[in-house]
């Protein structure tokens, strides 16, 4: 199968200071390929650059060297419209479940914001919302609540629902369950597995829990000191 998203010799150097710059290498020549319907696990100690790699792949950060290839094209060369397509096709879900949603907006508004972003006519909003809620296994009554009034697992599901509204091909999961209780972790992991089956999503699963990675991923990589190695 063809890789949808590729990291080609990506390096990242963090710079500090405005005048007297200090440099720190976070990633060095990392190459990685993501395909539809497959999960790649990414492990590593804290501070090994896992999240940075995820953000680079999601287009949220720029690599210092190397490139991110989306459907065969370097994303830094994409025109605005094509970049938007890439942006929608590659979504990211973050670790912190309670911080994933704007605390001042009701769940409904958070969903509606995304619907208006992808220019869905207002008349279809309700239908779409209920649809996606069913997909991620949430009940309608949560809609009028605020993020602080629902549990961490539910927050994570809403975040996932928002990402799914854009019909992504690849979802980068940054420690999606490490802040959740084990019972909720089990729920979310199973949900992710089902979604992959139904929608053919490609996952990059970033986690430090080997059990989680081995449960989800077909292929596991380990980041160590900015360098990527394949794990057995």
């Amino acid at each position, binding site marked *: 199968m063809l890789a949808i998203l590729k990291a080609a010799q990506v390096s990242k150097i963090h710079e*500090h*200071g*405005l*005048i*007297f710059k*200090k440099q*720190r290498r976070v990633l060095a020549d990392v190459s990685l390929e993501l395909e539809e319907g497959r999960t790649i696990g990414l492990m590593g100690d804290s501070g090994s650059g896992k999240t940075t790699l995820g953000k680079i792949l999601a287009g949220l950060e720029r690599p210092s060297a190397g490139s991110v290839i989306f459907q065969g094209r370097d994303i830094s060369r994409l025109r605005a419209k094509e970049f938007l397509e890439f942006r929608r096709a590659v979504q990211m879900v973050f670790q912190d479940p309670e911080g994933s949603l704007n605390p001042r907006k009701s769940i409904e508004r958070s969903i509606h914001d995304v619907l208006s972003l992808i220019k869905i006519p207002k008349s279809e909003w309700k239908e779409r919302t209920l649809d996606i809620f069913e997909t991620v296994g949430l009940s309608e009554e949560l809609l009028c609540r605020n993020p602080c009034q629902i549990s961490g697992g539910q927050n994570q599901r809403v975040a996932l629902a928002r990402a799914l509204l854009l019909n992504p091909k690849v979802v980068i999961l940054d420690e999606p369950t490490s802040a959740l209780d084990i019972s909720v972790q089990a729920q979310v992991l199973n949900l992710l597995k089902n979604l992959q089956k139904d929608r053919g999503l490609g996952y990059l699963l970033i986690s430090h829990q080997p059990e989680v990675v081995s449960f989800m991923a077909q292929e596991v990589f380990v980041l160590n000191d900015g360098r990527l190695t394949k794990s057995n």
Partner: protein
Amino acid sequence: MSCTNGATMTFSGKKAIRYLLAIILIFSLNFAIPRAMPGDPLANLLGEDVMLTEESIAELRAKMGLDLPLHHQFMAYWRDIFRFDLGYSYHLHSPVSAIILSRMKWTLLLAIPSLILGAVLGTLLGALAGWKSRDAGQKFETGLVLMIYCTPPYFLSLLSLYALSFKLGLFPLKGFYSTGSALDIAHHLMLPVIVMTLFSLSRNYMIMRGSVIQERGNLYAAYARAKGLYGEELLFRHVFKNAILPIITLLALDFGFILSGALFIEIVFSMNGMGNLIYDALLSRDYPVLQGSFLVITLMVVSANLLADLLYSRIDPRVRWQ
């Protein structure tokens, strides 16, 4: 904010650049503002009921360099600043630097004790008030301080002047001194210092109170409590030091504010300090004095800020080590 390896150089270098920039900009502003004012500066060289001929006007204008183009004046302005020459006040018939020097010491005599007293009493009482914010007595005290906080300084000065100096005759009516002896000066300064102390106390009190209320909710405070500290011991061993951090920066900024407060207090108590100097200069449009005063006050505020930064980094290791 994890730039732990951004060296100390970066931090102080950035600060230094900011301060330098601030000084340059404020000094330039200082040049521009008086010149943007309407009214011929020359008219202010003379008193009331003076009748002048055209020639002497032109003569004086040339003498003051006012016939030069603006950019020449600007260059001259900077040249003079580097020579610590703040110009000559034709109104007060003295070099501005000499005038300011003679006035500033009095204003500082008023401002610095007030600033220190206000800071010490304000933070201590404010910390206690924040620590026991639910206590009825503290609430009453906070209400009292709040009233002072909300009263314009000049109104407070006027009322206290009226009640304490005139009605009760406890303090002299005006000035920094009459005979000039130390006791006499202390007597004259007493009431203004008290008023200004109250005024700066009320500000520090409210800030410190809020700061303590905020800090006491932090986990380290709960942990300190779990270690067996309680009451004021907990406040002064742990919370106070953390809560005072925002005050330090504010104190420095307040320094400019205190000097401004001194302006009103000096006017009410008829004290010949910087405040009255600025006020008089303003009414008579004495540009050199206005400019010079601004310059000096700005320098003082900037150095107070610098001092606060140093102090801050002494107290907060997080700044020192970054």
